[in-house]
Structures are given as structure tokens and as C-alpha cells.
């Protein structure tokens, strides 16, 4: 990725994350805010270590691929408790763990709506289409989604935490642009 494009990525990621947070609030009925926004360029090994350190046991992960402007991976990570609380609010009754098919569907839709809101900002800015894949929900080993990326691959990551003020609900979004499904940022 050329330096100027990286600069654009860094600048547009902030309002795109804000849009994603607004979408999550509207879908869930909870007043989420975006905190701890971080946009970093690094090698995949370092990024992976940071993700593991921050999320030693993510519980649930929703993954979307994105194609069009360029290839990217989007992941939303939830602890068991946060996934349970978020789905309970969306469904309107307390759901049990592990989440059943309807609960997993709700969590997948969170990934779809939040991830696509992020993509929409970039697509409209560049007057193109940046289309997500159908969301996948993973209940173990969230980082397995990115097992095809080599450790020494240079990579650009946007991440943020969505948090509800006054309540113990948060989730983490990670967006990793890649030129193709295996490679890193050239």
C-alpha cells in the first residue's frame, strides 16, 4: 500500500469507526461509544501478539471478508458475557450460554451491520463498492480466521473498542486491509 493511501486509510478510519459505532447503537438499542481507536502499521506477528494479549479468550468472533476497493478482513470480538448481554438486549430476553442458533444469528448480524457501516464510508468516499461477505461466527480460536497470513507480512490494522457507558458491555472491531487473501500490504 502506498504511503499516501495509508494516510487516507488512517484519516478515513476514524469517521468510519464512528459510523460503525452508530450502527451498533441503533441495532442494539444501546448507547455505544467508540473508544481506544488505534491505527497501526506493523508486522503480522506483532499485531497477532497484541490481539492475543488483549483478547486471551474472545469467546465469540464474527468475521467478514470484504472485496471491491481492496481485500480486507473485519473481525468483531466478544467475551462470552458481552456476547450474551448484547444478544439478550437485542432479542429482548435473557439468553443462555452457549448461544443458540438464533443468538449466533443475532451476533452475526451485529458483524454484518457494524462491518458494513465501516465499509460504506470508504466506498462512498472513493465512489466505488466495497462489499462484505456473509458473516461467519466463530466460537473458538478467533485468530484462526487469519491463519493464512505469514508472521513477517507487513500489515495495517484499524481497531477500536465499542463500549456502553455505565454498563459492562463492550466489543472490539479489527479491520485488516490486505491486497489479497494471503498477502500483506505491499
Amino acid at each position, binding site marked *: 500500500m502506498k504511503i499516501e493511501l495509508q494516510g487516507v486509510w488512517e484519516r478515513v478510519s476514524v469517521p468510519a469507526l464512528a459510523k460503525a459505532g452508530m450502527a451498533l447503537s441503533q441495532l442494539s438499542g444501546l448507547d455505544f461509544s467508540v473508544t481506544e481507536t488505534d491505527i497501526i502499521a506493523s508486522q503480522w506477528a506483532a499485531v497477532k501478539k497484541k490481539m492475543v494479549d488483549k483478547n486471551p479468550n474472545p469467546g465469540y468472533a464474527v468475521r467478514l471478508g470484504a472485496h471491491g476497493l481492496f481485500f480486507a478482513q473485519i473481525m468483531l470480538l466478544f467475551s462470552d458475557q458481552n456476547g450474551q448481554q448484547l444478544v439478550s438486549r437485542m432479542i429482548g430476553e435473557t439468553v443462555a450460554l452457549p448461544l443458540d442458533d438464533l443468538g449466533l444469528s443475532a451476533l452475526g448480524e451485529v458483524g*454484518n451491520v457494524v462491518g458494513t457501516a465501516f465499509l460504506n464510508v470508504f466506498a462512498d468516499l472513493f465512489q466505488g463498492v*466495497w*462489499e462484505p461477505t456473509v458473516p461467519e461466527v466463530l466460537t473458538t480460536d478467533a485468530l484462526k480466521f487469519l491463519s493464512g497470513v505469514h508472521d513477517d507480512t507487513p500489515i495495517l490494522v484499524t481497531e477500536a473498542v465499542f463500549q456502553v457507558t455505565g454498563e459492562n458491555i463492550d466489543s472490539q472491531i479489527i479491520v485488516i486491509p490486505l491486497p489479497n487473501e494471503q498477502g500483506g500490504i505491499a
Partner: protein
Amino acid sequence: MNILIVDDAAFMRLRLKKLLEDQGYQIQEAANGREAVERYQAERPDLVLMDITMPEMSGIEALQAIRQIDSGVKVIMVSALGQQAMVIQAIQAGARDFIVKPYEPQRVLDSIKKLMA
């Protein structure tokens, strides 16, 4: 009035179904574009609410296929993919309206009433 809800997310189908049944509409469901085409051909609902990003067949492809069956079909796209280029593509393919997820329930009801008036 019969409405076909097309969305791969069971949660979203359930949410829309509750909203519309409370208003007295009769609901049919499909979980992807291919199933939507089959259900439309068999049951000819009065209106279709169609997601875009779905497995097997996308909502845009399903819209085009259904229009081959019935050029007068009334389809409202209901998708998170509210990118300008995609909205234009859907309208050009024959969609009558485009509602971006997450939506306000009243926005959906207003669109249906307007189309069925």
C-alpha cells in the same frame, strides 16, 4: 397482504416478521436469493423485502431473476450495504425502495404502505 422476507440472518427475519405481523401482514420467509425466487414463483406474494448479502444467490441476482418471472414485482431492498453505487445498482435492477440496516421500524412500514397504496 402477503409479504416475503428474504434474509439469511434468522434473527433479522424474526425481527421483521414480528414487526409486520403486528400490523396484520401475512409473512413468508426465505433464507437466500435462490429460495426467494422459488417462493416467489410458487406463492406470488404482494411484496418482497430483500437483503443483498446472502449465500447461494445475492439479493440483486434474486431481484433480477424474480423480475424475469414478474416484471411488476414490488421489491424493497433492506440491506446494510447502503453504498451509493449499490443503491443505484439496486434501483436500476428494479427495486422500488432501499432501506439501510439498521432501520427504524417506521421507515419499513411507511415504505410498504406507500408501495401498496
